[in-house]
């Protein structure tokens, strides 16, 4: 990919200016009209669409929300969300500062995974300060386990592992942890294959695969982020929630409520995401743009919206990570040095195909060209007759749908979790900036790189720091190329 990827790169800019002699009496030299832009002119649509879409969205939401609440497996919503309030992933409000709560039991929990797959049947023991064994537990098929305890300090030990699985860490099978009243404490253990001897090379291959997987998903979600930025100048801090929204709607239709097959639920999830994107644009951002609300204010609106959506999703879905009902417990395939489950393979192939499709559409279709024209120079595009608002709406719909799809893929390969959107958002930002803000191809390239860097860092550095590496590389690249990899510098004066 090079500079010719820009429909209206520097070279084209000058030809537009040069051809301005055809236009009569252009008052301002910087807004000439170009034939080629004119070609891209798009027809207007009826405004009734808005109302219709909002209605559909409301219906989908109602249909989905109804059964889901009833479904919340056995455990009453009360208990589970009390824990959520003070859990590790809880946001800035420090419960202790505002709350004076009765002592409540706390929770120790964790997920045991090996190369992305949950490992069941791992036995764990919990011992308190005084050396008394409080109890033991065993991880379930998805590798998850939890243990309710009083507030205090504990030692959690892995007592038994299934065959072929070993602890990867050198610091032993025990963890010292403390739990606050009503709090949740994650206890991390890292598992690896027992054949740790061939170690690094195998891990390397495996991490390349993981990196590509997450990178492809990131790329899919980041296209929308980048296009929305490109066409409206808006940094959408709520984009991560669009990702999670798609994943959660799908979960509600698949693992709860109507129990649709994942393919059907996923399709509906993508549609719901697209509609949500449309509703957000039409319901919030378009009116605000009309009012002439400034970019900083719009950015704050996205922060507020993200906060709002994230917590609505939390109340709706709960704080636990969950899985879809289909395609779980698959046998791993071995492809040369790579080992992966069929569902991961399919997700990777599908996301590659979708990215290629999106790239092709952006390059060849009328709407794709219009999108890039608007992203490149909104005023120029507008003055050449492109219906910019329509383009923006379509960017929102397709961007949100892609985000939702990315979220579903993420849920299929890992878990569905209300908070993962925000984490992904930062990685998407890193990808989008690495590539150069506003260029869709840059976003894809950058996201792939961020995915790879994130996962490959695990080969040499602690797992917990992988996101830090992904974000850190961003800063390093900007040192060398402040405009990002495929970005272009702005003109002055």
């Amino acid at each position, binding site marked *: 990919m090079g500079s010719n990827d820009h429909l209206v790169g520097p070279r084209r800019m000058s030809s537009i200016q040069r051809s301005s002699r055809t236009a009569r009496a252009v008052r301002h030299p910087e807004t000439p009209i170009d034939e080629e832009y004119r070609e891209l002119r798009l027809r207007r649509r009826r405004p009734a669409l808005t109302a219709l879409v909002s209605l559909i969205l409301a219906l989908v939401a109602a249909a989905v929300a109804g059964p889901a609440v009833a479904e919340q497996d056995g455990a009453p919503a009360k208990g589970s969300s009390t824990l959520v309030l003070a859990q590790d992933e809880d946001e800035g409000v420090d419960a202790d500062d505002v709350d004076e709560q009765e002592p409540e039991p706390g929770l120790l929990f964790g997920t045991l995974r090996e190369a992305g797959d949950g490992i069941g049947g791992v036995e764990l023991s919990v011992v308190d300060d005084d050396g008394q064994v409080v109890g033991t537990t065993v991880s379930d098929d998805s590798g998850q386990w939890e243990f309710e305890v009083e507030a205090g300090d504990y030692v959690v030990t892995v007592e038994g592992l299934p065959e072929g699985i070993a602890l990867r860490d050198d610091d032993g099978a025990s963890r010292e942890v403390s739990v606050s009243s009503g709090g949740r404490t994650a206890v991390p253990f890292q598992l690896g294959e027992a054949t740790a001897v061939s170690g690094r090379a195998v891990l390397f291959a495996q991490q390349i695969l993981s990196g590509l997987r997450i990178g492809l998903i990131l790329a899919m979600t980041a296209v929308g982020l980048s296009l929305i930025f490109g066409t409206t100048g808006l940094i959408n801090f709520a984009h991560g929630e669009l990702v999670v929204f798609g994943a959660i709607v799908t979960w509600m239709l698949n693992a709860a409520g109507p129990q649709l097959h994942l393919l059907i639920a996923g399709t509906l999830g993508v549609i719901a995401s697209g509609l949500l994107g449309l509703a957000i644009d039409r319901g919030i951002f378009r009116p605000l743009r009309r009012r002439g609300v400034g970019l900083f204010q719009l950015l704050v609106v996205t922060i507020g919206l993200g906060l709002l959506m994230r917590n609505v999703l939390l*109340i709706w879905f709960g704080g636990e990570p969950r899985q879809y009902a289909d395609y779980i417990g698959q046998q791993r395939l071995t492809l040369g040095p790579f080992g992966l489950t069929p569902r991961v393979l399919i997700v990777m192939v599908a996301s590659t195909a979708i990215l290629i499709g999106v790239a092709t559409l952006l390059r060849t279709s009328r709407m794709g060209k219009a999108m890039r024209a608007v992203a490149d120079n909104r005023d120029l595009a507008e003055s050449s007759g492109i219906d910019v608002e329509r383009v923006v709406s379509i960017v929102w719909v397709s961007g949100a749908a892609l985000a939702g799809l990315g979220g579903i893929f993420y849920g299929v390969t890992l878990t569905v979790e209300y908070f993962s959107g925000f984490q992904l958002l930062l990685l998407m930002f890193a990808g989008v900036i690495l590539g150069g803000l506003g260029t869709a191809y840059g976003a894809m390239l950058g996201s792939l790189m961020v995915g790879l860097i994130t996962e490959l860092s695990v080969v040499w550095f602690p797992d917990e720091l992988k996101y*830090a590496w992904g974000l850190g590389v*961003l800063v390093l690249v900007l040192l060398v190329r402040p405009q990002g990899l495929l970005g272009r510098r702005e003109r002055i004066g």
Partner: protein
Amino acid sequence: MDVVGALQTGLQSAFGTQAAVYALLAIGLNVHYGYTGLLNFGQAGFFLVGAYGVGISIATWGLSIWAAVFMGLVASVALALLLGAPTLRLRSDYFAITTIAVAEVLRLVANSAPAGPVTGGPLGLQFSSPFYAVNPFDVGLNLGFISYPVNTTWAMLVTWSLVVLATLAVALLMSSPWGRVIRSIREDEEAARSLGKNVFAYKMQSLVLGGVIGGTGGIMWAIVGNTVNANTFRPQATFFAYAILILGGAASRIGPIVGSMLFWFVLATGQSVVRQAGSAGYLPGGLAGPTALILTGLGLMLLVVYRPQGVFGNTRELSLDG
């Protein structure tokens, strides 16, 4: 429903140390964003280094409290310099995302087990300092309607004093020719440059000043609570500081103070109401946290659209395109 109780909780929170600490964060942010136009989304990072500067100095290295405060300040300055050097020349949107990324990297590192020996990892640091030993008060503040324990009273006095000090210093600076250059950079940095101003140097000074004020918030957070935990410094902290800044009015002098009090008053009152509704059975329990944040999000959206100048911002100024 106990409305009076909810209001009490709200007021208690509005004058508490948390509101004072967030006022410091917002004053720093006001220097960055309100006056200089730097879209710093990493204020949580300054909050973090100030707090960990103190925490690590005392808990890990066993230094005295004064040395710890000094370390907290040094860490804030260092972060500003390291953060600013590569990013201050970037476009404002790049700057925003880079700063949030750097702050998150710091938090992830502080929170990681390998950093445990220094930062305490996910468990954070607990320590004790002679701060409360020098508490001159014998009884806590009692305003009749609300009252504070004796140690909290002392912590409030010190923290709010720092808030006032920072406000005065910023007001003084912003009304000087230095402040004029700073504001001109917010308006158009090319223009400032064309008039012979070293824009990079001024932005850096602004970043350091606002960062140190934010870092002071972190320092007080650590000293008051005798504990530091990485989860305090999520991006949320920055978002809250922005909410406070907008509520009070960007580029206004006492905006951050009033903003912080209002913000925590509303948040705590709201949370209390939802909790009461929960225990009375009107709502499912445990919704207080999420609901408060939903309302915060909604409030932020409405505020920035319908009253972007906040309580004290200048409407006339705001109507001009920036």
